[in-house]
C-alpha cells in the first residue's frame, strides 16, 4: 500500500469518510456553532464561540475518519472461521503513508496554533483571559483607553467589586453598562481564586498580591452569575455573585444608589490600588 495509490478497499473507506465529512462539517458549523458556549453576550465570548466552532469543525472530519476506519476494519477483518486464526500478512509499515500522516497532522496542528494565536489579537477573543498585570499591547482592545475599570476582589469566600472611577465604591454585585469595554483588574486578598464570568467570556485567576487584567465588552442585556473556578477552601462552590448587564442609564442610577447607601463603609476602604496587602499577612495574632 502506498499513500498515493491506495488499494480498492482503502479507497472505499476513504470515499465513505469524504462523503460523511462533507455532509457533517457544514451541519456542525451551521447548527451547532451558534449553540456553543460561551455564547455571544460579549465581544470576547463571541470570539471564543467562533474559535470553538472552528475547532469543532476541524475535529469533526477526524472523528468521522476514525469511526469509519475502525468500524470497517473491526468488522471486515474479524476472524470468523472455526478454530484459532492463522497469522496475518507481515506488514511492517509504509514510509509514504507515514509521511502523509505526519504532514497532515503537522499542518492541522500548526494551523490550530496559529489560529489560536491570531485569536489573541485585539478585537478578538483572547482578551477575556487574564493576562497578568501588564497586558500585551497587541492583545489589548482598541478602546481600552475608554474602558470602564472594574476591580474584582476575591476573598474567602465572596466576590466584591470596586469601581475606581466612581469614588472607589465597593459592591457585592457586578453591574456593568452594555456596549462599553470593561477592564477587569482581578486580585485576591488571601488565597488563589479564579474570577469566571461565563457569559462574558472572562476568566482570570485572582492571585494575592498580584493584579490580573482581562477585557470584555458586554453587548447584550444579561442577568447571570459569576463563579469561582479555583479551589479556594470550604465554600469554594458557593462563591458566586450576581452579574447584571444593564443600560447605561440604569447603570448610573444603580451606581448613584450604591454610592449613597454604602458611603459610610467607603470612608474606611483603603485607597484604590491594583493590589492590597491587608493584615494579617502571615499569622493572625
Amino acid at each position, binding site marked *: 500500500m502506498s499513500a498515493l495509490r491506495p488499494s480498492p478497499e482503502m479507497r472505499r473507506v476513504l470515499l465513505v469518510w469524504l462523503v460523511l465529512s462533507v455532509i457533517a462539517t457544514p451541519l456542525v458549523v451551521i447548527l451547532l456553532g451558534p449553540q456553543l458556549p460561551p455564547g455571544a453576550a460579549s465581544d470576547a465570548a463571541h470570539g471564543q464561540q467562533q474559535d470553538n466552532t472552528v475547532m469543532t469543525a476541524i475535529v469533526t472530519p477526524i472523528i468521522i475518519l476514525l469511526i469509519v476506519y475502525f468500524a470497517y476494519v473491526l468488522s471486515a477483518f474479524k476472524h470468523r472461521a472455526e478454530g484459532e486464526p492463522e497469522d496475518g500478512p507481515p506488514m511492517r509499515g509504509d514510509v509514504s503513508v507515514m509521511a502523509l500522516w505526519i504532514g497532515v497532522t503537522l499542518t492541522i496542528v500548526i494551523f490550530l496554533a496559529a489560529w489560536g494565536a491570531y485569536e489573541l489579537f485585539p478585537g478578538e477573543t483572547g482578551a477575556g483571559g487574564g493576562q497578568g498585570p501588564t497586558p500585551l499591547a497587541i492583545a489589548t482592545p482598541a478602546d481600552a483607553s475608554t474602558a470602564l475599570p472594574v476591580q474584582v476582589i476575591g476573598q474567602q*469566600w465572596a466576590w*466584591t467589586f470596586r469601581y475606581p472611577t466612581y469614588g472607589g465604591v465597593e459592591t457585592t454585585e457586578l453591574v456593568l453598562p452594555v456596549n462599553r469595554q470593561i477592564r477587569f483588574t482581578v486580585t485576591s486578598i488571601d488565597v488563589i481564586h479564579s474570577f469566571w464570568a461565563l457569559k462574558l467570556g472572562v476568566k482570570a485567576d485572582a492571585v494575592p498580591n498580584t493584579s490580573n487584567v482581562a477585557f470584555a465588552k458586554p453587548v447584550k442585556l444579561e442577568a447571570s452569575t459569576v463563579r469561582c473556578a479555583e479551589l479556594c477552601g470550604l465554600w469554594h462552590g*458557593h462563591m458566586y455573585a450576581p452579574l447584571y448587564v444593564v443600560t447605561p442609564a440604569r447603570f448610573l442610577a444603580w451606581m448613584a444608589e450604591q454610592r449613597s447607601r454604602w458611603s459610610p463603609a467607603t470612608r474606611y476602604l483603603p485607597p484604590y490600588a491594583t493590589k492590597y496587602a491587608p*493584615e494579617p499577612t502571615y*499569622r493572625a495574632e
Partner: protein
Amino acid sequence: MSFRRAGAIFSVTLVVCAGVLLGLYVTRFLEAAPPTVNAAAAGLRQSSLTLQTVAQVGHGETRDWVSYYARDPSGKWVHSTILRVPAHSLVHVTVYQYDTATGLRNPLWGQPRGIVGGVMYVNGKPLRVLNPELASHTFAIPDLGVSVPLEGVAEEAPNQCENAPCGLDKAHNTITFTFNSGAPGKYRWQCFVPCAAGFILGFGGPMQTIGYMDGTLEVV
C-alpha cells in the same frame, strides 16, 4: 484447605470488612456534623436566634479555637452552627460577643448589609457602620445578602470569658439586628474577620470548620 473453601472465606471476609469500613467512613467522617439548632418562635411570622461568639472554647481538643455557639429554644447553649429558621419570616438575631477585636481584612464588611432598616444595635445603641479595626467577627449569609460586623470587646476589659459557653457576667457586647428569611432553602453562612488566632492568614483552623466559624442556615 481447598481452594473453594479459601475462596468462600476470603469473599466473606472481604465483604464484611469492606462493609464495616465503608459504614464507619460514611457515618463517622462524611456524615459527622454538629446538631441543628432551631430558632425560637417570637410571634406571627417572626422568630428569634440567639448566638454567642467566644474567644476560646476552653475545653476539649480545640480549646484554643474561636467559635460560635447557638441557644436552642429551651435556653441551653449548643456548640453548633447549623441553624434552622422558618421561611418568609422576620428573624431577630441577638449575638453576645465575648471576643476581642481582630479587624476586618476587607473594610467593606464594616457596614451591615441585608438587614431590616440597615442599622444594627450594639449594646442598645444604633450603629450604621463599624470601624473595621474594632470588628471581632461578622455574621454573614452571602446568598441572602446579609452581613453584620460584631464589635469586639476591649483588650484590657476585665472579667473576660475563658470557657464557653459564656455567661452574661463576662465582658461582652450585645449586637441585635433583624433580617428576612425569604424562600425555603439551605444557605451557608460564615465569618469574614480573620479571627483564627495563630493560624496562617487568620483563616485556618476554626475559620474553615463547620461548627465553629462556618455554618448553614436552613430556611424551612
